[in-house]
């Protein structure tokens, strides 16, 4: 008996040491564990259908729209606000894009779809600025402003075409949604995967050199190499899965879908914004202690406005992906999306009390939610039951978070 407890203890110590040395976020590990568990259960229950390249490919594409918006929702919630309007904002912006592309600009003109993308992003930024203005400079709580936005933008989406669905979109534009031609093929996927691995290695070497220059401690070599190996394995695995799904009735691999590339770019940009820019630092400071932020000379109002503008632009990007995927502009686009987006951020560890949250966490949250949805669809679970389940998961995730935070302090 004593032996047994001793081994258990050293194992726990080893794990703790591993976490300490690698500086991995335990919360993130727990989420990855949860995701792994969900995938395992669905794989067993669907006799392996869940884990086929085809399903994983679809799952990835399905996660993009919520994922893109969730990265912005993290900033909004970290700054102690909320945005209930993201679904409607997506819907309205999507209708504006579709209307310009199909009914205003000449069909087939090469500049048509790129210009509508610009219009969509500008429209998102403008509406975000409108909401941010009321929150930051007029002191109306974000809950109220964005609840109004939820109604107004949904109404606005209908008004664009009196409720008509507009189709079809430009064939080139459709690639942004990841349809049949909307992937980049095997070669490019491998090139991008290779670049990602090089960036991984370069990043950790760079960080190491910098820390050494300041005389700070660095991770032991085995930990550094271990992390790079695991990261590279994930990248390679991802590319292999995307390449394993072929175009219909051919052996041609699809490769990474364009919307997933868009998501990756958004995630990198947002993670960098959160971690290495002044703006990101200020958003976290504002969420941690608004008074301290103000006393430190931060222009809290301007930065709050910026947060909502960023959220609006992300809704614009999500609208592009949605209309491209749908090959149409329809009134119901983004309906209830605000709930999935907020849930993804919260499941991903964003604290509703403000000040805490990560972009990568929100993406994991989005993938967890989409995996549940996707797996239950495969199992033939009714839409009603799916809603009940995802609601319960949301409560469980937040409950787990509060328990976890209590134990840590």
């Amino acid at each position: 008996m004593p032996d047994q407890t001793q081994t258990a203890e050293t194992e726990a110590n080893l794990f703790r040491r591993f976490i300490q040395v690698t500086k991995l976020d335990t919360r993130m590990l727990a989420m990855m564990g949860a995701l792994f568990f969900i995938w395992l259960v669905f794989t067993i229950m669907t006799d392996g259908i869940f884990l086929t390249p085809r399903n994983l490919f679809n799952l990835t594409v399905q996660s993009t729209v919520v994922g893109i918006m969730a990265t912005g929702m993290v900033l909004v919630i970290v700054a102690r606000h909320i945005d209930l309007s993201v679904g409607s904002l997506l819907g309205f912006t999507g209708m504006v894009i579709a209307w310009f592309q199909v009914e205003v600009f000449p069909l087939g003109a090469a500049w048509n779809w790129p210009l509508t993308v610009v219009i969509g992003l500008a429209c998102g930024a403008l509406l975000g600025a409108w909401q941010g203005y009321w929150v930051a400079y007029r002191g109306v709580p974000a809950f109220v402003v964005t609840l109004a936005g939820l109604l107004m933008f949904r109404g606005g989406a209908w008004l664009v075409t009196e409720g008509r669905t507009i189709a079809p979109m430009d064939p080139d534009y459709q690639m942004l949604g990841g349809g049949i031609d909307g992937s980049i093929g095997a070669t490019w996927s491998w090139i991008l995967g290779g670049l990602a691995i090089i960036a991984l290695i370069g990043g950790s070497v760079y960080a190491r050199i910098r820390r050494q220059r300041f005389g700070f401690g660095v991770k032991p070599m085995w930990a550094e190499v271990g992390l790079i190996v695991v990261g590279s394995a994930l990248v390679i695995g991802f590319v292999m899965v995307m390449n394993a799904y072929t175009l219909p009735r051919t052996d041609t691999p699809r490769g990474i879908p364009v919307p997933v590339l868009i998501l990756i770019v958004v995630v990198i940009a947002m993670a960098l914004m959160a971690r290495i820019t002044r703006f990101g630092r200020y958003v976290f400071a504002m969420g941690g202690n608004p008074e301290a932020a103000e006393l430190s000379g931060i222009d809290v109002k301007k930065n709050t406005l910026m947060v909502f503008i960023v959220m609006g632009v992300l809704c614009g990007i999500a609208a592009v992906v949605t209309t491209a995927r749908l090959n149409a502009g329809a009134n119901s686009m983004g309906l209830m999306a605000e709930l999935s987006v907020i849930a993804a951020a919260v499941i991903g560890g964003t604290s509703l009390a403000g000040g805490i949250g990560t972009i990568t966490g929100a993406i994991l949250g989005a993938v967890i939610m989409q995996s549940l949805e996707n797996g239950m669809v495969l199992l033939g679970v009714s839409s009603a039951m799916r809603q009940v389940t995802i609601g319960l998961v949301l409560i469980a995730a937040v409950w787990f978070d509060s328990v976890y935070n209590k134990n840590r302090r």
Partner: protein
Amino acid sequence: MNDVPLVEMRNIHKRFGGVHAVNGVCVDLYPGEVVGVLGHNGAGKSVLMKVLSGANPLDDGEIHIAGKKVTIANPREARALGIETIYQTLALADNLNAPANLFLGREILTAFGTLNDDAMESEARKVIQRLNPNFTNIVSPVKTMSGGQRQSVAIARAIYFDAKILIMDEPTAALGPQETRMVAGLIKQLKSEGIGIFLISHDIHDVFDLADRVMVMKNGRQIGTRRTSEVTKDQVLGMIILGKLPEEGTEEDLKGFH
């Protein structure tokens, strides 16, 4: 001390709704001088200091910095005038680590315009080392730190940026005896460098040891200002508690304190 005062606050008024928190207070501060601001709880000490630090812009009155009339509308403007503040509430973002708090609003950037966290950590270590050599774990979130460590972060932030005028609102409230001594030593050193310091503390002994002059407030009003070399602690206590100047106080009034 015949040169121009660093700070001259004239007839300062600040109201919060019905509360007249600061009511016609005048105070000045010379280079290399420590002025203690004393008074009971709620006397208006912190509000007066926040008028100077830009956190509570004044309703009425004038502020002169080095002889020039200025308006201080927000903390940024105060910092630009060389005024640094240790707030009674510390004003730290709990979710950020010590270097991030120390440089909040004035981050060190890399050549690409991004945050240079390594440089900030390195600088933070140097300045915190001066205050509290036992405090090494500075890169965890401030909320996981002890009260004294948090206070060290707030002090470090105020002294790092070459202040000309330093406001210390209860800077040692959470510190142990050894750290308090280090802060006292620090105050003496800053004083010798020609920095003007407003020191607020409830510990009248501390203030007496460090301050050249004390200013006493009661219910938002100014009772008076005296050189510490010309009054006794009991007389100052009389000013704080009874609101009477040493000349007005009787021996009997003061006996009650013993």
